[in-house]
């Protein structure tokens, strides 16, 4: 990854005018096809596998195992159901670059049902779904959108059947269920409306479930989760919300490129002011990074191009539990953020810190190093959803909660 003025650009930017998207090949193995750039397919494939190893925070020695598993798998049957959704998670999936989306949906997985992009419609589409439900042969069921449970489920019907009925039938026919996006995970914003909207985990009993929150999900994490599942036949380590720790185990604030400015007490005070133009900390503008876990700052969006704080707006904690309720008002300041092990609150923050660190030269040059040195603190998420950064050493992964309605770990 190169760094161009703060923008991470992928090394092989596609140029439509010149050369070009990957040439499809007749090779059989899905990820090789997926990564087939002329002549260097094998190298890129191995690159992908080691990138996955890194993202999943696995030891590098695991890479061969991933390679092996991915090269020999048959195409798993995937069904993607949409309920009370905005298709934002589908759009996020369409932005996948590693592997490219065409390779995922044509070569890697057999995406048999996905309303937004499948060729068939109406009865022909429903038959595909009901055949898989009857055969019980769905490898991975991906769900986008919340499930309305009020008033007999009339707030979302597909082919005359309620979302709830569709979900329960399909889940029973699936080995693994993955909820993508805030709505499918915990009901999202529709939870606040009158339709009795709930998340997948609330209605599928003990089915193995992985929750990939975010508004929308970041497809890089979803791909990595699926790769892990296909390689090891198990979910990656999960927290009590059934979220993979590799993606949801670290505070945004601890991984943020503006953190050195926070520590130095350099804050944006007004939109477009000098601090804003210099990329200072957005805490005073309402940033929720200190209370939010996600690997957003590392994975970023759209093939690692940027992320919201990088573009100049605070984090809204879109991957946190019930963030629409707990993180609003979005422009309000988080109280009681810890600095240097001392409690500081919205009023005092920024006052004391400037004098402490002499950063004038160090911040810019050293922010990456500083970030590395600080390491990535694991954060624990309490049942009420608050985040408690914990000091080193990092704790063991939190076991899945018992029957709190979020399902059990895969």
């Amino acid at each position, binding site marked *: 990854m190169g760094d161009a003025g703060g923008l991470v650009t992928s090394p092989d930017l596609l140029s439509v005018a010149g050369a070009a998207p990957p*040439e499809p090949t007749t090779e059989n193995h899905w990820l090789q096809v997926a990564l087939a750039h002329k002549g260097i397919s094998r190298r890129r494939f191995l690159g992908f596998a080691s990138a996955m190893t890194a993202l999943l925070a696995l030891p590098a020695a695991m890479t061969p195992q991933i390679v092996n598993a991915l090269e020999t798998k048959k195409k798993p049957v995937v069904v993607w159901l949409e309920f009370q959704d905005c298709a934002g998670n589908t759009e996020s999936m*369409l932005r996948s670059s590693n592997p490219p*989306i065409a390779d995922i949906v044509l070569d890697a997985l057999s995406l048999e049902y996905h309303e937004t992009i499948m060729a068939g419609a109406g009865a022909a589409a429903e038959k595909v779904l009901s055949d898989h439900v009857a055969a019980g042969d769905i490898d991975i069921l991906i769900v986008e959108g919340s499930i309305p449970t009020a008033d007999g489920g009339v*707030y979302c019907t*597909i082919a*005359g059947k309620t979302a709830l009925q569709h979900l329960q039938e399909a889940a029973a026919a699936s080995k693994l269920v993955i909820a993508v996006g805030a709505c499918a995970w915990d009901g999202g914003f529709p939870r606040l409306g*009158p*339709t009795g909207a709930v998340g997948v985990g609330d209605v599928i009993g003990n089915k193995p479930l992985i929750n990939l929150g975010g508004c929308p999900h970041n497809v890089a994490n979803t791909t990595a989760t699926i790769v892990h599942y296909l390689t090891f036949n198990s979910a990656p380590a999960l927290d009590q919300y059934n979220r993979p720790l590799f993606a949801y185990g670290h505070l945004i604030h601890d991984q943020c490129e503006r953190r050195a400015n926070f520590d130095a007490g350099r804050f944006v005070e007004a939109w477009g002011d000098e601090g804003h133009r210099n990329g200072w900390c957005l805490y005073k*503008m309402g940033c929720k990074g200190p209370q939010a876990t996600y690997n957003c700052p590392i994975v970023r969006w759209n093939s690692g191009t940027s992320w919201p704080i990088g573009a100049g707006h605070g984090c809204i904690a879109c991957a946190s539990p019930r963030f629409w309720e707990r993180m609003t008002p979005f422009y309000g300041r988080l109280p009681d953020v810890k600095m240097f092990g001392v409690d500081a609150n919205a009023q005092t923050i920024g006052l004391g810190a400037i004098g402490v660190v002499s950063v004038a030269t160090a911040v810019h040059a050293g922010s990456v190093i500083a970030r590395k040195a600080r390491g990535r603190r694991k954060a624990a998420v309490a049942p009420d959803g608050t985040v408690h950064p914990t000091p080193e050493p990092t704790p063991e992964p939190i076991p899945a909660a018992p029957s709190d309605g979020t399902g059990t770990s895969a």
Partner: protein
Amino acid sequence: MANVVIDPVTRIEGHLRIEAQVDGGKVSKAWSSGTMFRGMELILQGRDPREAWIWAQRICGVCTTVHAHTSVYAVENALGIEIPPNARLIRNLIAGAQHIQDHVIHFYHLHALDWVDVTGALKADPAATAKLAQSISTYGRSSETQFAAVKARVQKLVDSGQLSLMASGYWGHPAYLLPPEVDLLAVSHYLDALEWQREVIKIHSVLGGKNPHLQTYLVGGMASAVDPNSPNVINWERLAFIQERIKMMRAFVTDVYKPDVLAIAPLYKDWFGIGAGHKNYLSYGALQDGLQNDQAKFGFQRGIIANGDLTKVLPFDQQKVTEAIAHSYYTYTGSDTALHPYDGQTNPKYTGPTPPYESLNLGDSDQYSWLKAPRYDGMPMEVGPLARMLVAYGSGNTAVKGLVDGALHALGDVPAAALFSTLGRVAARMLETVYLLDLMDGWLAQLMTNMENGDLTIHDGSKWDPSTWPAEAEGWGFHEAPRGALGHWVKIKDQKIVNYQAVVPSTWNAGPRDEKGQTGPYEASLEGTPVADPTRPLELLRTIHSFDPCLACAVHVVDAKGQERVRVEVR
């Protein structure tokens, strides 16, 4: 009685059900039903108007950005804020990129399979395909090797027995008319467009932090700070990155999308005579190049074309917008007459069949949709690229006039009236995409000039503090989303939202009948559509998809009953 049902209508956003009565091989009546409801507007009540855009953006993730854009304009309109030029330019660049990317995705990934038989590609000769491709375009990926590889890929998919997304298409349907080589060409570009779209949309990640659901709007401007010399914000390097992607847009649109539409459309020329509907077209206008309401500087003109009369563009007045609910699952307190959005209410009241059901209740007084029925001065209106191009054409927009006349000529000198059709929508969407390329270049150039001249303002903060607001205010924000006219109406009292209504493109187009029994645009345009095989109603999909339905947008409304919210973390 309906005897053809399509549910789910796929390759759209959201949940749409179409029922139709087919007599003697033609549709005589059709019903359009939205089958999902969430309740966004209730949820907005009582909130800080400055964050409404973050919520409203979640109305739709396909037309992401458009609700954020319209929401901030609505609140700015209410509070009397004019945003700085740089913020306007950044919003326009985001909106233009959204249109261009969305239209290409619509053509190749949502609509093409209604016209292109993927299995037809298996019979194609790659050499002949290359020859054909090279005869219509200079696009680089047009070699025999390229097409042979795509053909092999399709063959492999078929041989695997796991057809994935292609499993349930109406392949072999008699209404597919393309020669195999055109099928193969289109499949190849379907795959290329998948790559292209994720690359060009990086414009959104630079300016908005991410796509979907950009995160840099602000009431009063944008949060994407600009400074040519700062490494951490929008600087020369990032602008160059954007410029590169605008070039990619131009290359793909002019070398692939446009030639493909112009090559495929003549092979289906009957469809220039099918799918017209009411022939009433509405554009709110958008893409301001000056003050919020300076219509002379809109990139998309505002106005109405009624009854297909292109000689007159009628003025538009937002006061004449109403929403009827006679056939929708809602009630109004008081009487059920149509309401203007400022006074809009929506009390959900489902009266449809108990699920699981086989058919909707479609009697004259029955309700059958979660969509309301928007009307302008009591008339149903089609919105979208065709409406915009027609209004611009009728308003004398010379660039649009040149594009439209050129296309009519290229399609075999068809009359302008041919645009009132299913294929007219497809052609207009393409022409609009071409039109936007120059606007994109212009906005980027202006932004660069401003920054060069030292104008680094991106936000007007004079009304950021809610204590500066009047006790009560109301405003409307408008936009032309990829799918058509979009309006948000907001009422603010004591620094909080008291009413919020969005009337969105797909509600205009996909809405049901009104109290007078007037059909909505989908319903009207389906009438007369030929149906060769009622068990495989491919032809209905063509007309429905030509509108580019977006149903999550269309159903988003709810009543005023408050709901207790927990706010523990923030103060």
